[in-house]
């Protein structure tokens, strides 16, 4: 589990890189930390790995306080850093063997874990080669394997699929999902919003060190983009006239072949809305939720934070 309260970091006495961050990530959950470059994601992760000491507030990672028990925190965390950080003159297998020793694994566990990770990430063949000869994606996969070598209970992953081809990225996403189902606590810092949407249970948007939004994707969508919208499309032009809308439903937009409704409580209102449309003999072709992507949430939040208008 990861818990933070008022977690803050100040540099040079006048710059707050992270300011009052409150997070709670349960085992078996993935939190996606989104934000611009320099927003404070890396500083937050570094505080969670006890590399930087908080100026204010506290954080507990895997049950250990990051200030009081830094060694225990580091032993329980697997970190994928912004830069892959590989030793270029070491082979893939030597690299995992080395970090296995650094994390205090016995020889049998090291061998087993290395073999599993190299096989899983498709690096078994390249393992005897020096990592300096690897492609960008292979380096990223090896770095991820390093973060997983000690089977940590907490994972802090900075851009886990950057530079990877789609198949490799899918492989990594599958592994992250598997780790979630084995009750690992995971934080992903990413600019890949589709990936965050697909993987995360919770999303936090950080801007200039402060968390602007934190919640599930649905909560974020509702908070930023308003109630859910549903669209009814018609087989041919249809004039709905003054449609008798059930309570909690508002007409948001209309064209000759579609109507868009803003619905506060879909479970209660949608059946009534469909009955109203049928009563009007509407040539209904489809009725579906208007997809709202995390991208819209993110861009709107950033635009609001910067005081500019968001054009979707």
């Amino acid at each position, binding site marked *: 589990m990861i818990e933070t309260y008022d977690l803050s970091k100040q*540099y*040079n006495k006048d710059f707050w890189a992270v300011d009052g961050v409150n997070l709670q990530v349960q085992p078996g959950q993935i939190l996606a930390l989104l934000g611009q470059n320099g927003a404070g994601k890396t500083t937050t992760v*570094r505080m969670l*790995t006890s*590399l*930087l*000491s908080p100026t204010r507030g506290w954080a507990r990672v895997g049950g250990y306080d990051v200030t009081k028990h830094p*060694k*225990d925190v*580091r*032993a329980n*965390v697997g*970190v994928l*850093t*912004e*830069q*892959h*950080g*590989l*030793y*270029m*003159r*070491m082979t893939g297998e030597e690299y995992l063997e*080395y*970090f296995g*020793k*650094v*994390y*205090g694994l016995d020889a049998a566990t090291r061998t087993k874990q290395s073999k599993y990770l190299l096989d899983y990430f498709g690096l078994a063949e390249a393992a005897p080669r020096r990592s300096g000869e690897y492609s960008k994606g292979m380096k990223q996969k090896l*770095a991820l394997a*390093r973060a997983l070598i000690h089977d940590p209970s907490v994972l802090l992953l900075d851009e886990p699929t950057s530079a990877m081809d789609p198949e490799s990225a899918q492989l990594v996403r599958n592994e992250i999902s598997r780790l979630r189902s084995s009750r690992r606590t995971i934080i992903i810092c990413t600019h890949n919003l589709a990936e965050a949407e697909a993987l995360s249970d919770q999303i936090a948007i950080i801007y200039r060190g402060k968390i602007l939004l934190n919640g599930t994707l649905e909560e974020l969508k509702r908070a930023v983009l308003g109630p859910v919208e549903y669209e009814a499309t018609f087989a041919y032009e249809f004039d709905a006239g003054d449609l008798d809308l059930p309570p909690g439903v508002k007409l948001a937009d209309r064209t000759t072949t579609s109507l868009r409704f803003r619905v506060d409580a879909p479970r209660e209102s949608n059946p009534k809305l469909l009955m109203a449309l049928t009563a009007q003999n509407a040539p209904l072709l489809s009725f579906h939720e208007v997809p709202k992507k995390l991208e819209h949430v993110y861009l709107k939040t950033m635009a609001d934070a910067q005081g500019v208008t968001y054009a979707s």
Partner: protein
Amino acid sequence: MRRNWEGIWLVARREFQDQFRDWRIVVPMILMVSIFPFVADNTTRQAVNFMNRFGGDIILDRLIPFAILVIGFFPLSFTLLVALEAFVGEKERGTIEPLLSSPLEDSHMYLGKLLVGVATPLLFSYGSITLYLLLLMRRPVEFPSAYMMTLILLLTFAHAVLMVSAAIVISVQATTIRAANLMASFVVVPVAFLLQGETLLIFWGNEDVLFMAVLGLTILSGLLIRLGLAHFKREYLLGREIDTLNLKSMWQTFLDRVSGNASSIFEWYGSEIPATLRQLRTPLMVVTGLAIITIVASYAWVVLNVPKFIDITPNRVQQVQSYVRNNLGNLDVLDENVPAPWIFVSNVRSMVGFLFAGLISFSTLGLALFIFNMSLIGGVLGAASLINYSPLAVFGVAILPHGIFELTAVFLATAAVLKVGAVLVTPQPDKSLGEVFLLSLADWFRVFIGLVVPLLAIAAVIEVYVTPQIIKLAFPYL
């Protein structure tokens, strides 16, 4: 202990592997290490021929140890790069963060890198020396004694530890490899000077003094390692992407520390200075203890040993005493020959000299200067005793009147220098090495400006205008 060693070895082994897999490091090292002994051997041959022609046997005997020392030093100077980039290199290549995020202890990382930094140059240094000695076997020259040979090998070891420990400190503190390389001069140049000093000792032929040099270097290296470990912080390796030199902020920090919480000079003397003195209690006790031991030891040395070199007959004692008596008149015009401002400036300069000597050596050279000065007092009193003057009376009449102020100032300044060194090698949470350095300098300055300078000014006036009169008055009773 075993776990610690495993952690250190883990870091060191990887570094070793990394270095020896890079032909760009290995090939130049091997070339330099192999070529230089041949050059030195050729130089030896030329020197042997030259000396034999002019009968310079003594110099020839000392030339070989000197050549060995230089051959040992040579690989150290260029393999220093390995140590210089130990941390900052990993930082630039982005490999440091996974290592810092691991449960390895700070000391494992630091000492692991230090071990590689020391072992690699030593491997090449000793390899180079061995090659030279093998080549030397063909020459008609005498090999250095086993004791001298041991001393030179120890000196080479001490050089390596000193240079590498300093380089590692630089590597931790520097933000780029370029900056670290620029700072390498601060390691190589002083050690090159040191080497010249040691060369003098070799040619002087005093092996015991050479042993003292080994001991001194070992102490200094130990303090440097302690400094590095005390100020090794993972945060600083990651937190400072760009170092900015904020002179205004530095000056403000310095001033704030010097002035403390006082709002007036009276408040400063009333509260800040007593607080500073309380902080100096332990260093003052150490300095006072050292002074007493040194004065007594040098007094005893002079009294016991000088008669072995100089025949002190009653007639000679009479001569010296009458010389002193006849020149007492000069004391009346002392202020013309040695004016009080000159004494004051000279003493202030010495105290600043103590500080600089202390700063570059974690107080040890500052303390050495202090010990030297105290030994002069003991020596003078010993000499007085040899010519039948009461040493206590000489101390009470010729030293104490101005010494009350001057010696107090010297003790305070030395204690402050000792504290600077102690603070530098003590871990200071939440403070960078630069901050610690600046604050300890401010602490020293507070003592210097608040106490040492006024005391030295009073002492200079008394020394020129009061002490001579007391000497004249008291002379018949000495």
